[in-house]
């Protein structure tokens, strides 16, 4: 049973999707933050290195470790931070295309860890999950499919037990995340009486729309709060049962899409959707591709063939 659950051979499509999507998200995030590097992570940023290095455990890699390098080379520490960010983006690029995958993942993980240790006060959920994801990209076989390293016309995706074991770890980790998050929310009265939803949507930092009307519909706020608790606490049950899995997957994707739309947390929502899709949703995404996109491409191909045939025989027939 253990062998069947953890070690039944499977292909690495889901893990390749995970690698590509995480790298892409990291690049988008890096691009978004590049203009604020000095403020968020610089030696004299909003939280300067002198403060952050005193709070973070000394064994944790942090940007203040660049100070001796800056002293020895004469390059300013701020320039070194930008150079490190450049290296981070390059390693994400390599991870994206699957070139030197494990090395790229290791470099990206190490640099991202260094940045979040220094800028830990400004980090939120998206950093937490990128850190988890990059660590998994080092350990798991994420570069076996759709990767430059494995590019060959002769080879087909190989089934391996390590793909299954990796997916199981990802799946169980995700279940832990949702149950813990749901249980912590359930301890607060605000999630039961709808006030958590109301309070969040009324904060300028999150609100994208004027939601004052919700005060007249407290039952709606309550139902949204209860639904969130049910989705998070019930996650392991509905996502593991094969019959409820597609509905559960769609429900959790919709929850995160709503967070992106109504709270403006696009990157956080995106990374949670990536985790869910890699862990549970990949077969549905694949079948959606084959049933929706593939027929469209086939139809286009047929239209093109029809056009070519018409041209080829036009001189032989009266049109």
């Amino acid at each position: 049973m253990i062998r069947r659950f953890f070690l039944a051979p499977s292909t690495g499509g889901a893990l390749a999707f995970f690698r590509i999507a995480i790298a892409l998200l990291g690049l988008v995030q890096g691009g978004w933050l590049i203009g604020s590097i000095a403020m968020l992570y610089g030696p004299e940023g909003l939280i300067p290195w002198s403060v952050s290095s005193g709070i973070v455990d000394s064994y944790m890699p942090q940007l203040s470790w660049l100070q001796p390098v800056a002293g020895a080379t004469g390059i300013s520490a701020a320039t070194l931070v930008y150079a490190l960010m450049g290296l981070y983006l390059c390693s994400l690029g390599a991870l994206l295309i699957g070139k030197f995958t494990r090395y790229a993942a290791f470099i990206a993980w190490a640099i991202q860890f260094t940045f979040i240790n220094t800028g830990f006060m400004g980090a939120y959920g998206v950093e937490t999950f990128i850190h988890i994801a990059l660590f998994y990209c080092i350990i798991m076989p994420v570069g076996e499919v759709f990767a430059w390293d494995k590019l060959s016309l002769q080879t087909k995706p190989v089934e391996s037990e390590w793909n299954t074991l990796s997916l199981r770890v990802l799946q169980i980790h995700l279940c832990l995340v949702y149950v813990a998050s749901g249980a912590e929310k359930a301890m607060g009265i605000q999630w039961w009486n709808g006030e958590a939803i109301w309070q969040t949507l009324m904060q300028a930092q999150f609100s994208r729309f004027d939601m004052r009307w919700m005060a007249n519909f407290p039952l709606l706020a309550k139902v949204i709060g209860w639904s969130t608790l049910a989705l998070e606490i019930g996650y392991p049950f509905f996502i593991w049962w094969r019959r409820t899995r597609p509905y559960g997957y769609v429900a959790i994707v919709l929850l995160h899409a709503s967070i992106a739309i109504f709270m403006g947390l696009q990157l956080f929502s995106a990374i949670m959707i990536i985790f869910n899709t890699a862990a549970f949703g990949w077969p549905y995404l694949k079948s959606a591709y084959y049933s929706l996109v593939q027929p469209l491409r086939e139809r286009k191909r047929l239209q093109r063939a029809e056009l070519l045939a018409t041209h080829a025989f036009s001189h032989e027939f009266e049109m």
Partner: protein
Amino acid sequence: MLSLKHRFWLFIATFHLTVAALHAAHLEEWFDEKPWLLKQLTAYGDFTGTGNIFSFFAPHVGNEIAVVYTLADGKHQEVTRLEGPNTESNRRIQTIYNFFSIEEAQPLLAKSCAAYMLRQHPTSNMVRVTVIDKKIPDMAAFRAGSQPRWEPFLVKDFRVTR
């Protein structure tokens, strides 16, 4: 039969997920003083991403915090806010400001913010850091006419001594 390699990696996976579960259950808060083993588990959690708790918006939603800076150079004064070039940047500034809700962090954080603003505005020699939070009435009070309002809860002045 499982091979030795399979057993080894199954053990690693089990250990990894157990550490994640323990941290999610606030392992570090179970002890007053960190025993040696906990220190090692914390380090493992920090490096591998299994050391997180997932209390997003839990157990309750905190007040929104904002900081207003009043910069002065002896003749003029300017009231301003620190804003990044985009929403992601602002989200991080906001996350830093949320630490003002921890009383012990307030003096150091106010000093850091003040120092940063003075570096950004080198002509100013004084800055007042005013930390405010938004009190949002509950739904019933809002229906009864109560409105959200910003209230200052920390005001600190800093002067350049150079």
